[in-house]
């Protein structure tokens, strides 16, 4: 009888080990994968910069760098600012610059702008504007979910989620509408799923860019958008962003 108990305990331990070991090792693996993505961004930023965009506009230059080195990027841009056409002196960039050096050299010449890395995305934004409460990018969306949809569908859902957050009464009963897109666009080709709880619009945009894997986002503002007592534009037109593909074609997964 005692022997039977020993055998039962032994079998239980074996079964427990078989069941638990994968779970024990799975968690660190997930962690590795996450930090791997961050590491991937760091590796891209540490690459030697063999391409320097020649666009006149600073924004176009930043986009050019993001596209060439395939760097997930979020840009908050103030139109008509001094940063439009900054000139980077030759001496401002090391002899063999990395991509990070290149970006830093450009951003350091842009008054008020700062380069940070958050959520695995390179952010270029003027902190004074970025932290404002009336910046829609700081709006917290309670629940946001994309189910096996493309980036156009995700964008539409996010616009709707913002509107529902700001005007919940309008959507109490439901919604009837839609959106359109270019069927040939690279963003229409890849589907993905994404879910977030209580994240800001900025964080969601980061998440969508990463989930899509081929996008950077730009939110453009006018200074007057943040001026007091000015209602020159409809509210929704102050909540504009656009995604830009890093590559114009996407490989079949």
């Amino acid at each position, binding site marked *: 009888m005692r022997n039977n108990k020993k055998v039962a305990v032994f079998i239980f331990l074996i079964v427990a080990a078989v069941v638990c070991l994968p779970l024990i090792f799975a968690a660190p693996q997930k962690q590795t994968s996450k930090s791997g993505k961050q590491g991937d961004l760091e590796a891209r930023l540490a690459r030697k910069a063999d391409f320097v965009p020649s666009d006149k506009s600073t924004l176009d230059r930043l986009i050019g760098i993001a596209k060439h080195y395939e760097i997930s990027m979020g840009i908050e841009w103030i139109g008509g600012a001094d940063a439009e056409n900054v000139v980077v002196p030759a001496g401002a960039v090391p002899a063999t610059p990395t991509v990070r050096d290149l970006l830093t050299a450009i951003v350091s010449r842009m008054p008020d702008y700062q380069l940070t890395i958050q959520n695995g995305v390179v952010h270029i934004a003027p902190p004074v504007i970025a932290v404002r409460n009336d910046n829609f990018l700081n709006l917290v969306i309670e629940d946001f979910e994309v189910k096996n949809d493309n980036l156009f569908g995700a964008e539409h859902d996010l616009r709707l989620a913002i509107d529902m957050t700001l005007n919940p009464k*309008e959507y109490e009963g439901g*919604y009837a509408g839609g959106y359109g897109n270019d069927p040939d666009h690279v963003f229409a080709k890849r589907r993905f799923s994404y879910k977030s709880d209580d994240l800001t619009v900025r964080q969601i945009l980061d998440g969508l860019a990463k989930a899509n894997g081929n996008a950077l986002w730009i939110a453009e503002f006018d200074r007057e958008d943040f001026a007091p007592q000015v209602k020159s534009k409809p509210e929704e037109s102050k909540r504009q962003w656009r995604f830009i593909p890093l590559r114009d074609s996407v490989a079949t*997964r």
Partner: protein
Amino acid sequence: MNKKLLCAFALAVLWLFASPQRAQAQYCSYGVAYGASWTWQDNNAVYGYSATALDYCAGLYYDPAVYGRFSEGNFATENVRLLAEGYTEGYADWIPAEVLFSYGSPIGFQYYNTDSIHYVLEYYQYYACFSYCGYYWYDPWGFGFTSGEGPNFSGSGGVSYWAVQRRRLGSTYHTIIYQPPDPCSQGQQFTSTGLPCTEPTPTPTPTGTPSQTVSVTCCATETQNRGIPMGNGTAQVGLPNRNSTDITATGSPAGGEYIWSTSSDKISLSPSGNKLTITAQKKSDQVGDVVINVSYKLSDGRHADGQIAMTVQQPNSFKYVATTFNGALSATRRTRRQRLVAGWKKTIDWQVMDHLGQPMQFRMPVADTMNNKLPNDCFVPRMGEGTRLAESHGTGNGGQWTHVYELWSSACVNGGICGVNGYQRYTVNGFELSNDDKDFRMQCDGIQVEGDGSALTPSTPPARKKTAMLVDQFYVAGFSDWASDDELLTWTSRLNNGAAQGQAQLLTEARALGRAVFDSAEYNNVSRSDEDFVADLYNAYLGRDPDQSGWSFWVSVYRNDPAQGVNGHEHLLQAFEQSTEFIDLVYSLEAAPPPVVCDPVEEQACWNGGGLWDPSTCFCEYPPPYDPCYPYYCY
């Protein structure tokens, strides 16, 4: 002497026609016969000449004859083609036998040949005594004489008859290579067909390989149907309006100049070498009514011309192409504070068409608005989202536009039905297509858009609510949440059983349902304002938002109850339970089992796990790993 001079003159003349090696005197025992073949060209024709001539010494009893042929082709390398042939006879040494040929369609650099067989006709009287009396020759005019070899013979030799013998003297030939006429002007090196100029002498003399034939291909266009897009104004945001297109001509050989022109007032041209930018000014009246000409000129004067007919296209309508998705949206909560909603989704591909019914195959800015008719029993707002111009990436390069239509409403949950009518209005390339508003109807069970070829039976709100819908009504109003599957099944069964026993029992169960919600700890633990509590009761018991007067009344009652020593919560519950409106609603309920509603948690777990969720079966399908042909992987 005169005869010798004449003979020498004739010889000299014939010498001019026949080079020594080609014209040969073959036979004339008493004198000289001359045969000649000659070929020459004159501008666009070639000529041939065959001749046989006799000199005086041949005597009058000989006539010359010639058989000439005029042919095309190189005897040495091919079977020549006979163009003409002829045979003539001359007269004595007075008139030579001559044949003249001409051919008006010679081929450049082709061989043309004249070849001749020369004969002499010999006349004589054949006498029976020839065997012994010798020959007695007569010339055609009757001057006869003996041959000198037979016995002297004069006059009649007895029975005789005229005879003629054609003796072949020999043959000659002459060949030339036809040189097409030279249309070159002074200084021109090559003809328009690429041949080197010879006359007048070009300056400088052409050297090297003759150039290719000049040609121009007109034109490579942006779209297959040769459209020119017409835009309206300048887009202030997003993609710029398209109001022009480029076409490209290709001239050969390279190095020439392209000269573009048109007589149409519907466009303006901005040439840049072989590329032409065409800007629309007016829309076309018919397909292909804008003709653009291009002339490709080389520096030596040679040129080639081409033209193309195009159409100025103004956006006018959207044509249905295909439906790529059409299915139900399972019950879900868009935000945690919102009611559960369900509905329908449809994805349609549209093609932009012009005012002439032709597809516009350009990438153009596009926006649309979705305008819902109010009121509607789906309780959706007037404006759908649509696509703002600033958000739009424009149509595809082929002018196609995919549009997603979706309806979600709390009225659709749990097998409910509602519908909303409306119209969609497009703006394409700056033109608002108000003539092509797409009427639509969106229902919980389908979506129909004008022109999509689908049929949808318009729904009507059910006169009677189903028992399951009352359960939903209470849970959503009280908990802002959907009843779980178990709760829904339990309460629907209780209501159905009550209905089977009569209206009184049904009402009892319905009241019990209300108590289960509003007396629950879950509800009472949520801090609700007085106003919210009253609104919840209206939504739960009456299925509607409170009217203002009723709301104010019950809020004031609720607030005054404690002062009267009355439990306000209980007071209001009893008031709503006993209201005629609630009782009527309960009596009108239709007993029916709850429909299948997928578990949102299960569905979420499916998506999180990378599966494909089928809402019609509440089944999650996980794709096999690494199968490149599985639809999940192949976009």
